[in-house]
């Protein structure tokens, strides 16, 4: 349970500061510090047990489906990190209290800091890979908040964004890697994973998993080539840098290497990838730390360099190297946090961090100078300080590595060069800032920082000295425990002492220190040399890349998403063309087994007319009336084609529907301007024609292929059963009223409801009849031409007669209630068109709603009727009668049903069309009224 407390107390601590206010800063800091302090005490209580070899663990099942458990552990490795995080964290809280100015929102800062601390503790204590990853992601986010704390500064925002981009990307790669490990092992439980090195190394998925995990670790720990974000993150307030970039955030990457060392290390891939990356990073960072001019940037690059060193140690596949790596983690955290804080003090007191302006500060701040000197000496690897010990261990390890085979001597040489540079930049940091003449151009006169601000540095410096002087007493215990955990076996015996006698590593250390001094003295030559290179600012490069990306996306948006419907359509059609074209290319021949029918002249003429009319519709679309007429020709030809290919029923229906549609379109045209303005340029027309031709070609070839292949369909069944089952020879009609009677009943019900719905919805709509077209020409005053009126009147009885005829013969010959209904409706509509709504309504003085409703009622009753005779719903009975002139009429109950269909169609169609016509009123309100 206490494990949970260690993680959760800082989380609680992130809420506490908000209880306080920005004015009561002492209270705020105290409230914040309370929770980590308790957590530290809890940890210390656990420490003896852990050092004795216990591993307290705690597990709750959380999301079993994801393999995610709320599982924590406190082994030696975790303990080392927990102590670092909480210890340095507490010092940072104290430091930040005095560092932040009045203008900064202190509760917010502390809340972020505590959130970060929680996530960091979560990483180091997680006993489940997914849990570890979740906390990992939280560190990315909370560090984003912390780095961008001064959100009014553009540099802070950009730096934070860059840090998040790099670490966030790495984090997702890490997730993929961890899932892969989980799949190899079969569980995300940490202990099981750590114990199954053999399984993991033998698996073919080892390499991708390793690459993904290393990607995560290297981005987090700013390893080459992802080192660039760390210097830019220095825009953060100094306490943040001191915490995140010395002891915690960047250490998460190397922690992961240490944590997964038992599971992943031991292969050639690991050896080369990890140690060489570390080596390169170490040299790269050290070189730039020597070059840079900003105090914090210098420290940032030195951090990069030291992280490279630690990474290299973990890569070396030797147990002692792991111990050395852990030791250096501890040492680096102490001296680097202290150094960052001294940089912060200098910045705070002098108002600048530019090393060219700062000189001779020892006059003003002797204590800070002393502390900076001690910690920088530790960083340089000066004897009697902790940095010396771990650096010497590192040098000793490089001598024994099998890396690079015959070129193995390169490794210690390069490591020594790295150490030389480290000594040089440490010396530069101290001498150029605190000694070397008098300060120039300072904005304010510096003075010594207040004691509480110096206190954290002092504490860390003392730690540096204690570990440096009494390593065996102070560090061996915790280090051995941590190494046990990181190796999952007893660590090699550790003899930490200041003096090991004269040996090669000591010689290398001496070379490093003397060489560092020489390099420092001769640094001007190095600077001159460096100036020959164009300066490369990683932020500028990154921002440049971002800008290019932005321009690229902007270009993408402009080309793809310009709001033009035609453009969108173009893309859809092109992609459809690509898909169908590609699949068509994989086919040898279009033609199928069926023979092609002979083309007779009639067909050819018909096809030609259809093509012509279709083209004319498109070409003349700006002259709407003509275009509409052409469109109706296309429709007519389509119905004729139906008739030609033995589907008279379809032909009739198509014809009737066509008429209704054209009437509707005419109604719409009435309200539109007569002509469409010219909207396409010539090139666009060419493009469209090409596209249309291409797509038409593809569709036509598909159709051709389809029609030349045998088709099996359900029509045979209906052909066979229409007379025996439904008593009719007109298969379509029999399907409608018998086989699929129930469907038809549903359909006419829908039609009726839709009609009523439209009728009701149109109730309030008023469109005003235009008296002139858009060009100001008045419409013809003669609204109802005489010829049309008289023709339509004489047509009406004939049409009605035809519809009765079609209706009666429907069951056997082409026809039926549906078509008959449409014919009647068209005839009546013609009356409306020819004579106007008022005239027609006076004569047709009945409502259409009851007609439609009674149609549905009749159809339903027919169905119910069969119940009365003990048959299922809608069973039809039929008998034959002979009516003179019309012929043999079969009177089936289906006929009654058909009557229902007829009535509904008439009622609904007229209800819709007649009312659409009615919404126009000739009275047009004056313009003024409309505006009001």
């Amino acid at each position: 349970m206490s494990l949970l407390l260690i993680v959760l107390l800082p989380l609680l601590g992130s809420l506490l500061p908000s209880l306080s206010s920005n004015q009561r800063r002492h209270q705020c800091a105290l409230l914040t510090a309370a929770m980590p302090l308790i957590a530290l005490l809890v940890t210390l209580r656990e420490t003896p047990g852990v050092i004795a070899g216990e591993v307290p663990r705690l597990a709750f099942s959380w999301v079993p489906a994801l393999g995610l458990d709320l599982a924590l552990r406190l082994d030696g490795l975790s303990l080392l990190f927990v102590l670092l995080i909480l210890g340095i964290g507490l010092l940072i809280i104290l430091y930040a209290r005095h560092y932040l100015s009045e203008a900064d929102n202190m509760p917010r800062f502390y809340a972020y800091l505590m959130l970060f601390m929680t996530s960091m503790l979560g990483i180091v204590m997680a006993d489940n890979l997914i849990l570890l990853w979740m906390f990992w992601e939280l560190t990315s986010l909370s560090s984003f908040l912390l780095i961008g704390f001064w959100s009014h500064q553009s540099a802070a925002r950009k730096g934070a964004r860059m840090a998040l981009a790099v670490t966030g990307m790495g984090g997702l790669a890490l997730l993929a890697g961890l899932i892969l490990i989980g799949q190899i092992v079969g569980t995300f439980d940490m202990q099981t994973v750590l114990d199954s090195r053999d399984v993991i190394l033998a698996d073919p998925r080892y390499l991708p998993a390793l690459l993904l995990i290393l990607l995560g670790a290297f981005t987090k720990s700013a390893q080459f080539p992802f080192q660039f974000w760390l210097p830019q993150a220095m825009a953060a307030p100094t306490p943040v840098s001191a915490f995140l970039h010395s002891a915690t955030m960047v250490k998460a990457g190397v922690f992961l290497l240490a944590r997964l060392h038992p599971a992943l290390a031991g292969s050639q891939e690991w050896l080369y990838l990890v140690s060489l990356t570390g080596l390169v990073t170490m040299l790269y960072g050290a070189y730039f730390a020597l070059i840079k001019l900003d105090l914090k940037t210098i420290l940032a690059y030195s951090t990069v360099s030291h992280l490279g060193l630690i990474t290299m140690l973990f890569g070396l596949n030797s147990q002692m190297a792991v111990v050395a790596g852990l030791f250096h983690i501890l040492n680096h955290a102490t001296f680097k946090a202290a150094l960052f804080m001294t940089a912060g003090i200098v910045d705070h007191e002098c108002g600048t961090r530019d090393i060219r302006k700062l000189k001779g500060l020892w006059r003003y701040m002797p204590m800070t100078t002393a502390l900076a000197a001690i910690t920088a000496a530790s960083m340089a690897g000066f004897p009697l300080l902790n940095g010396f010990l771990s650096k010497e261990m590192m040098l000793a390890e490089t001598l024994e590595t099998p890396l690079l085979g015959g070129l193995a001597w390169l490794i210690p040489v390069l490591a020594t060069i790295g150490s030389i540079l480290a000594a040089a930049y440490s010396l530069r940091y101290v001498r150029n800032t605190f000694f070397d003449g008098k300060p120039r151009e300072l904005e304010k006169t510096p003075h010594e920082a207040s004691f509480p601000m110096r206190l954290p540095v002092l504490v860390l410096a003392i730690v540096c000295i204690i570990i440096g002087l009494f390593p065996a007493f102070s560090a061996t215990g915790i280090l051995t425990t941590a190494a046990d955990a990181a190796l999952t076996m007893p660590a090699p015996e550790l003899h930490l002492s200041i003096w090991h006698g004269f040996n090669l590593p000591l010689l290398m250390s001496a070379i490093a220190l003397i060489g560092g001094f020489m390099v420092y003295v001769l640094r001007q030559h190095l600077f001159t040399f460096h100036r020959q290179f164009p300066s490369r600012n990683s932020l500028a490069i990154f921002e440049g890349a971002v800008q290019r990306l932005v321009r690229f996306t902007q270009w993408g948006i402009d080309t793809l998403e310009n709001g033009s419907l035609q453009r969108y359509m173009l893309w859809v059609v092109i992609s459809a063309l690509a898909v169908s074209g590609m699949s068509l290319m994989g086919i040898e021949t279009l033609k199928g087994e069926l023979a092609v029918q002979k083309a007779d002249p009639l067909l050819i003429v018909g096809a030609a007319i259809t093509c012509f009319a279709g083209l004319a519709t498109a070409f003349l679309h700006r002259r709407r009336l003509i275009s509409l007429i052409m469109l109706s020709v296309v429709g007519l030809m389509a119905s004729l084609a139906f008739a030609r290919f033995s589907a008279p029923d379809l032909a009739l229906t198509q014809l009737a529907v066509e008429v209704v549609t054209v009437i509707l379109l005419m109604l719409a045209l009435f309200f539109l301007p007569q002509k469409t303005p010219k909207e396409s340029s010539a090139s666009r027309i060419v493009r469209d024609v090409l596209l249309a031709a291409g797509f038409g070609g593809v569709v036509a070839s598909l159709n051709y292929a389809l029609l030349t292949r045998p088709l099996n369909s359900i029509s045979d069944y209906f052909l066979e059963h229409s007379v025996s089952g439904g008593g009719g020879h007109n298969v379509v009609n029999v399907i409608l009223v018998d086989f699929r009677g129930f469907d038809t009943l549903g359909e006419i019900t829908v039609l009726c409801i839709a009609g009523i719905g439209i009728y009701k919805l149109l109730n309030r709509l008023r469109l005003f009849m235009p008296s002139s077209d858009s060009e100001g020409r008045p419409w013809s005053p003669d609204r109802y031409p005489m010829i049309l009126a008289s023709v339509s009147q004489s047509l009406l009885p004939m049409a009605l007669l035809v519809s009765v005829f079609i209706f009666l013969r429907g069951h056997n010959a082409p026809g039926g209630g549906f078509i008959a209904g449409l014919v009647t409706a068209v005839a009546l509509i013609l009356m409306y068109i020819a004579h106007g709504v008022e005239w027609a309504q006076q004569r047709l003085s009945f409502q259409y709603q009851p007609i439609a409703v009674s149609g549905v009622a009749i159809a339903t009753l027919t169905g119910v009727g069969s119940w009365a005779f003990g048959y299922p719903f809608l069973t039809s009975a039929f008998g034959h009668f002979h009516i003179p002139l019309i012929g043999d009429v079969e009177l089936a109950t289906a006929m009654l049903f058909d009557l229902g269909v007829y009535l509904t169609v008439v009622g609904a169609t007229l209800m819709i069309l007649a009312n659409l016509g009615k919404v126009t009123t000739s009275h047009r309100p004056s313009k003024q009224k409309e505006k009001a």
Partner: protein
Amino acid sequence: MTSLLALSPLILVCATAIVVMLAIAWRRCYDLTATLTVIGLNLALAAQLLAWWQAPLDVTPLLTVDGLSIFGGVLILVATLACATLGHAYLEGARGPREEYYLLLLCAAAGGIALVSSRHLASLFFSLELLSMPLYGMLAYTYRERGALEAGVKYMVLSAAASAFLLFGMALLYAFTGHLDFAGLGGALASAGGDGWLLAGMGMMLIGLGFKLSIVPFHLWTPDVYEGSPAPAATFLASASKVAVLVVLLRLLQSAPATQDAWFHSLLAVLAFVTMLVGNLLALMQQDLKRLLGYSSIAHFGYLLVALVINEGLAVETAGIYLVTYVLTTLGAFGVVTLLSSPYGGADASRLHHYRGLFWRRPYLTAVLTVMMLSLAGIPLTAGFIGKFYIVAVGVEASRWWLVGGVVAGSAIGLFYYLRVMVTLFLPEPGMQRRDATTDWAQRAGGVVVLALAALVVLLGVYPAPMIDWVRLMAAT
């Protein structure tokens, strides 16, 4: 009888549509219409339980009721309920007829429910049209806005074109297999192998369905339509409509294993990859929250396609879980936009500057939007993370490194623009014109819905076990 019970949710939604229509025809009363709609939808939601007792059951050759259809139905009904509630607040101040919105909404919902139960190309097509047609009206509902009318027309024209492709693909498939039902089609495809004709047919159908899902390169309408249309309609389009189409696509791919043909399969994979990247990249620079959400939904369906591409192992479960989290999050995010634009008065408040400093005015609403953005970005402890995790897990399991790379890169880019929105919310507010939610937004139905969604997103992020169990149960039936 069992068939009727199994279809009861669909029947109830249709009946509600008719009742609402008649009620409007009888007497226009805004609150009554809304109440009737909500009651009907709730009854339908409860009736899903009835349907569940009958499942799995094939109702007529056209429809089937099984776990997948119930899963989709529940999501659609929840989304529709949210849209109805949000729409109520939104349309309160609108001029002109307001009641028909519910009519259209109910019809579209019925289409969606029928679509997820379809196991036949015919029912697929007509329910897809039933889903889309009312949407034309809904998108252009505030037709006095230029944007809304434009959105409606654009969606209608392009959607009609896409439907044409869909129909053509169906015709091809039918012509070469003689089957229209998914099972028969699957069998015929399996025996035919990678015949070019069938691939052309499947490809055409994919275009039609991909259009509705706004898969790149058929996505072009999405941002424009989202931006222009009234917020509740856009919400429906982004949630219920997409769920329905994805579920039916899933069913189609599941019942036709021949779709695992290499050519078709790589086509799908390429589309998924491109969709993830393009969606996220184009979202980067958007200045309008609704547009941004449009691109983000494109990207999310790219992730979902990954599950469909892999189509083995955990893929169905993954798709289900991702859909749940996506729907909840999208509803929440659009819900905030709707509340901020309610009651309707001119174009929606969706430009990012409308949200500048929202935190200082409406802290709780800001919290809701922040949670939704975090969830969309897939941050741990939100529902979105669970979905993202499943996608990555499925990709890794199948060793599809390109797709995993796409998901990772897309999510990393996504983090940027979601964070941008969040940062905007907390910026100090300059003296700009503002649109604000009403002060009592949290006490109103729409506000309660949004708050509940936020709570649910967090809850499912912290304790997703019930959701996972439910999806598993549904996927297993």
